């Protein structure tokens, strides 16, 4: 006789563990793209889909979850008539004021974000999946819904365009567009 235990279908433990292990990462991904309330709604739908399609969820679910979250958010945005502007959000939310890491690092981060903001959305996406969320090639390919070979090609092209975008603002380049606290110093 089990007293004090809530009777649950056996798979709920699986869902709770999936949530415990990955909800923070999925929420981080979503918060870079939308407000907190929408991010929570999309996250809840993402894990509900994971439950409904649990036989499709791979043993390493990270890329799969990012892929579902991307699609759910895209549908949400289409219904709202808005577009994703991940890097623009970072630039306007003043997250990169000079702090403990020093002004040079802050300038470099700002320049990198400006370069990322100038890229196409597909280029930016492939770079961020690797550079911000540390996805492996297999995970990133799964998140994007493409083969690893296609992902590798996309990443190669995106890196090339990023280097070109960074070039005018690397040392010795133009200072235009840098934050006011730098040009005033």
């Amino acid at each position, binding site marked *: 006789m089990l007293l004090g235990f809530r009777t649950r279908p056996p798979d709920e433990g699986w869902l709770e563990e999936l949530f415990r292990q990955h909800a923070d990462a999925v*929420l981080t991904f979503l918060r870079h793209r939308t407000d907190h309330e929408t991010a929570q709604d999309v996250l809840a739908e993402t894990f509900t889909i994971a439950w409904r399609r649990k036989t499709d969820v791979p043993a390493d679910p990270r890329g799969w979850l990012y892929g579902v979250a991307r699609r759910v958010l895209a549908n949400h945005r289409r219904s709202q008539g808005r577009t994703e502007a991940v890097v623009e959000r970072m630039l306007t939310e003043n997250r990169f004021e000079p702090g403990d890491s020093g002004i040079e690092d802050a300038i470099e981060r700002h320049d990198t974000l400006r370069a990322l903001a100038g890229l196409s959305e597909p280029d930016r996406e492939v770079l961020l999946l690797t550079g911000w969320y540390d996805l492996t090639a297999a995970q990133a390919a799964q998140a994007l819904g493409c083969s690893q070979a296609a992902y590798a090609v996309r990443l190669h092209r995106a890196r090339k365009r990023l280097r070109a975008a960074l070039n005018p603002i690397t040392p010795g380049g133009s200072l235009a567009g840098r934050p006011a606290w730098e040009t005033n110093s």
Partner: protein
Amino acid sequence: MNDDLRRVSRARPPEIQGWAASDEGRAVLDGVLRETRRPSPAKRRNRIFAIVAGAVLATGAGGVAVANGLPFSDGDPSGGMCARTLSADADLSQPNEKFDPADPAKACAESWTVMFGDGTPRPASFVACRHPGEDAGGSVIYPAERFADAAAACASIGSRPIP
């Protein structure tokens, strides 16, 4: 990692940590768990459809549609549904697109994977039948399965074809 990717990595914003274990995270998880205990969307739609179909029958609209041989789903407030299987209690779902009265099966064929996932292969042929049973009257596209004749396919689930 290459220099350019390392640079992207250094521009990474802060990560969220500890949210899943917070009260807010727990509330979201509880909401997801509540959702998982409800019937699947297809089954919920089946129930809604049964109610709508019942209302159609009660008002006589479904009967008018059959008697006058109107196109698929005319006079049916549900707008028509797609069934996963040829059975009287099949899961029903609405397709993404509106039904073309001249080719109502097209909407079900094109939305098949979205409605029912990859686990149920898309049927090669369909039939249009009235929803059978107590809540009969609604317009449903069913997989034809082994039947080559619509009347026989619909009769196999206690229904009749939509003209």
